[in-house]
Each structure stands twice: as structure tokens, then as C-alpha cells.
């Protein structure tokens, strides 16, 4: 038999995954919405061409009109421009904080589940983190580290790193618990013994035999993590400890807008809608991915 023939007839796993993913209508819609949001916030600003921090006192609290499609706020910021600029920050914070939490959580969960001697200490550590009152902790850490980081990386990057890092290291616990539980159950399965029996090494067993089996819960907690990070960032901004005031994020816009909900309700509605849309679309994408990545569900 010719090996080249075998190679070409080898159907790719990712083709199968995509075929299954397409069947999940919600996930497809999610992909379009999420793609739309990303394109909008990164391509939108130059097209719209309005500086989000430009103040125009003559155009305060405007309702939507041609020059300001989403209206303006109480000091004449263009809401659309602020929404787009804020989206960049919120998405970046959400995605990177969730990624940190995902990596930390998976790492700690796998170690606790697979290495018996680490199980106790790591799970107690998780308990400690879970029992910490998060908001005060975040506030104190921001007070402590903000100035150092600002000095080191500049005001914007510094605060970005601080917020992303803090949200990341305070939201890995649920992932860790889920992953640990699943690793504990999967590693007792017979196919893991079978993998040992053909001489597979421990790290390979973890990465090739156990991790793919727990992909679905990881997927789900990752997508929820993004939503969670965006909302936590909002809360920080609301308390005035997030990004500086001239640095809009969806969360900040939302909370700033609440005071003016009766004058210009669109200032609350739009950030709220976009946070919700992002979270929902990411969740649907995660759901679709989970189904598509599970070969037992695929091909039905």
C-alpha cells in the first residue's frame, strides 16, 4: 500500500468538527454576532471617524441623529465612538482574563486530579481563593499595585495588565474544581490503564488521553469566564478603580449611563445590549464547539 494514498484519504478531524459545528444553528449565529462585534470595534472607529474623547458641550444629551447615530452623553461625547472604543478594551480584558483563568484553572485542576500528593494542598488553595471576598481583594490589590504598574508600563497598559491579571487569578477556581473532578474520574477509566499498558508516559497520558476527554466542561467554563471577566471589569470601572475615566469600557459606559437613564436611556441600553450579545454569542460558540469536539456526538 502506498503511504501517499493513505495520507490523502485521511480525512481531517477539523473538517469533521466544522461539519458538526455548522449543524448547531445557535453556534453559527453566535459566530456571526461575535465576528460582527469584533469587526465593528476594531474596524469601526476609523470609519466612524469621531474621537471618543472629544467633548462638545453644544451637543449634550442628544438623541440619536445622523452625526451621532447613538446620541451623545452629558458632556457631549459621541456614544457610538465610545461604544466602539470601549468594546476594544472590554473584549480584550474579557478574552485575556478568561484565558488566564482557563490556563490556571486547568493546570491546577489537572495537577490536583492527577498527582495525588498535590490534591490536598491545591484544593485547599482553591478553597481559600473561593472564600476570599473578591471585590475588596480586587480593590485593595488595585490600590496597592496600580501606581507601580503604571510607572512600569504606562498608565493604560499598566492598568490593563493589572485588571486582566487580577481578574484572571481570582476566577480560575471553578474551572479547577471541575477539571479536577473530571480528571479524577477519567484517570480511573480502563482506557487509561490500557494507555499505561502500552508504555505511554504520564504527561502524554494527561495531554493526549485525559485532557481531550474533559474538553467540554473546560469549554463551557471558558465561555462563561469571558462573560464573567467583562462583568467584573464593569464593576471595577463602576467603583472608579478600573480604567481611567478617559478610557471608556462597556462596563464604565453602562454605569456612567445609569445616572442619566431617564434623559438618555440609550446610554444604558447600548452597552448593556453589547455585553449581553458578546456573552451570549460566546456561550453559544462554546456550546457548539463542545458538541463538535466530542466525537461521540459528532457524525450523528
Amino acid at each position: 500500500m502506498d503511504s501517499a494514498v493513505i495520507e490523502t484519504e485521511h480525512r481531517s478531524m477539523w473538517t469533521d468538527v466544522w461539519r458538526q459545528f455548522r449543524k448547531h444553528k445557535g453556534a453559527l449565529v453566535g459566530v456571526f454576532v461575535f465576528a460582527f462585534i469584533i469587526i465593528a470595534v476594531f474596524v469601526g472607529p476609523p470609519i466612524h471617524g469621531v474621537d471618543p474623547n472629544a467633548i462638545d458641550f453644544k451637543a449634550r444629551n442628544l438623541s440619536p441623529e445622523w452625526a451621532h447615530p447613538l446620541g451623545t452623553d452629558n458632556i457631549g461625547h459621541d456614544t457610538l465612538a465610545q461604544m466602539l472604543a470601549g468594546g476594544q478594551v472590554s473584549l480584550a480584558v474579557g478574552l485575556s482574563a478568561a484565558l488566564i483563568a482557563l490556563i490556571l484553572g486547568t493546570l491546577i485542576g489537572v495537577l490536583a486530579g492527577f498527582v495525588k500528593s498535590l490534591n490536598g494542598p491545591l484544593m485547599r488553595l482553591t478553597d481559600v481563593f473561593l472564600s476570599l471576598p473578591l471585590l475588596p481583594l480586587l480593590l485593595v490589590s488595585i490600590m496597592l499595585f496600580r501606581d507601580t504598574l503604571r510607572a512600569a508600563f504606562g498608565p493604560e497598559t499598566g492598568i490593563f495588565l493589572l485588571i486582566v491579571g487580577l481578574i484572571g487569578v481570582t476566577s480560575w477556581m471553578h474551572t479547577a474544581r471541575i477539571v479536577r473532578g473530571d480528571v479524577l474520574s477519567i484517570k480511573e477509566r480502563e482506557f487509561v490503564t490500557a494507555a499505561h499498558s502500552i508504555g505511554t508516559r504520564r504527561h502524554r497520558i494527561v495531554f493526549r488521553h485525559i485532557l481531550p476527554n474533559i474538553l467540554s466542561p473546560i469549554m463551557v467554563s471558558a465561555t462563561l469566564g469571558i462573560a464573567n471577566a467583562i462583568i467584573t471589569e464593569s464593576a471595577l470601572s463602576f467603583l472608579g478603580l478600573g480604567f481611567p475615566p478617559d478610557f471608556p469600557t462597556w462596563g464604565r459606559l453602562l454605569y456612567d449611563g445609569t445616572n442619566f437613564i431617564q434623559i438618555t436611556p440609550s446610554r444604558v441600553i447600548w452597552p448593556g445590549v453589547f455585553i449581553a450579545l458578546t456573552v451570549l454569542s460566546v456561550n453559544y460558540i462554546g456550546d457548539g464547539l463542545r458538541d463538535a469536539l466530542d466525537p461521540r456526538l459528532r457524525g450523528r
Partner: protein
Amino acid sequence: MLSNPDSDVVLSVTDVVTQFDTADGRVHAVNGVSFDVREGELLGVVGESGCGKTVTMMSLVKLLPMPPGEIVGGSALFEGQDLIQTDIDALQKIRGGRIGFIFQDPMTSLNPVLTVGYQLTEALRLHKNSSKSAARQRAVELLELVGIPMAKDRLDDYPHQFSGGMRQRVMIAIALSCDPKLLIADEPTTALDVTIQAQILDLVKTLRQELGMAIIWVTHDLGVVANLADRVMVMYSGFVVERADVEKLYRTPKHPYTYALLRTLPEMEGERAQRLESIEGQPPDQLQRPDSCPFAPRCAYAFERCTQENPLLEFVSEGHEVACWWNMEKNAPREAS
């Protein structure tokens, strides 16, 4: 001990003792098991559930969870190396490479999220450093060898797309992938229905002729062993109680336990509405290492000596060893040797 010190012994196991720490105390699972496997031979290991068959085999390559398991002593010489003294890292080169394993339940022994092709090539890539395409080609050959049609197209299928019998064929193919010298099959047909069982047995017979490796076949199905094995070892409560060539063991069982086991088989001839025989009583509690014969409480032939001393495995005739104080043929206590 087996008197055959020939060079054709593949695996020589001596006095393996394995124990488990449990909440109730230390369980004596394997109490000094010794046996040899010769080249090209199929050794059947039989005994009821919990008699230590599987634990003995797992101890050889340390596939036991340790702790709570502990291999207390013994040696297992394989290709000039004592497996019991070898550390896990070095054993990993032997597992899958020189010693293949087949497990009981094919439905759970394959990883559900990895393709059959991946699982088939894993051992090859680990032990033979095969390239991806060479490994795939070998995987196709292996699947054809174990009788899976359209092997090439099935490499990218997942285990759930195979039936139970097919999966066991895949497991066999995995175990054979690196041309092992020894194949340990742990109740490989127990989870399969009778038709599939027959197919797998035929397959094993053919493969043995083609590849000529030694096989240890662990089972509690005496019918399977009669069909397949060259020699049979009967285990009870972590001891080997009888070992003989397959013909001798079935014709003239010399241990009451073997005798009782054989009587539990349904008979093809004679009256139909006969109740199946069973062995009265339960296997002993293994929390203490017995100092008398472990089978004595259930044995129809037990006499005083059986409750005082534990018999050792002794040759009673050519190629036939038994551990019993009673001589079933003479129907009298065995003479002191």
C-alpha cells in the same frame, strides 16, 4: 518448581507476593505465585473472581495502583531482566513494546475521543519511533491482520463506531502492534457474547500460528481454556493450586478445587433438566495470610492436616503439579514426601 530450566522460557515468575492496603487491613491478594511461560506457549490461568489472577498479571508490569497496591516480593525474569525490580520508567519501554496487554472490556478500554488509528499507532510511535505515515501503514496491516474489513477507511473512525467484537479486535491489534514476545490477555472474551467469543478465539489461534508469541490467557471460563491452552494454572485465593498440561488437567484433575470447578460446567450429554453444580461456600477472607489450606473450608475431601498446614505445589506426575494433602486417585491422604 517447574523443572524445565531450558532456554526457551520467556517469562519466569517466582514467588510474587502482592498485597493491598485497605480500610479493613492488608489484603493478601497474591501469596507467592510462581510459574514459567515458554516460547510460543499459551498458558491458561483460571480461577473464580477475586482469586488473584488479574492482580498477578498486573503485578508483573506494575499496572496496579500503587499505593494501595504493593508488590512485596518475588521476581519475574523476562528477557534477562527482573520486571519486579525494574522501575516504572524502564518498564514503560517493555510495556506495549515487548509485552502486550489485552483487557477484559473492549467497550471501556479504548479512549472514546481518540481515533482508532491514533490509538493503534501510539505504541508504534512510542516504541519503534515510526514516522506517522509508516505507523499508519502498519496500523492498516494490523487491522487487516485481526480481520477488520476496509481497514484503511476505518482508521479515522472513533471507538463508538465499532461493535464490541470489533473493538476487541482493535485491542488485540494494539497489543500486537510492536510484535511483543509475550501477550497477556486478561479475560479478553468475558465481556463478549458467545458468537463473538468464538470468533476472537479463532483469531487468537490463527495469530498464534502466524506470529508465534507466548500468551498468558487469564479467564474464568474453563471451556475457553480447554479450547486454547497448552498448559493450565488454577489459582485459588492468591495461590496456585494446580498446574498441568491441558489434557491432564481436564482428564485427571488432582485438586479438589479444580475437580469442583470442572463439575460446575454444564454437560452437553445426559439429562437436560439437571441443576448446575456449584461450589458451596465463599472464597476466604484474604485479610490474613492463611496458614492452612485456603480451600479447606469448602473442600469435600478436607481432613485434619488441611486445617493445620498449607500444602505446597508439588509434582505428582510428569507435567502435573498440585498443592493438596489429599490424593484424589487413591482417595487417601497423600504420603509425606
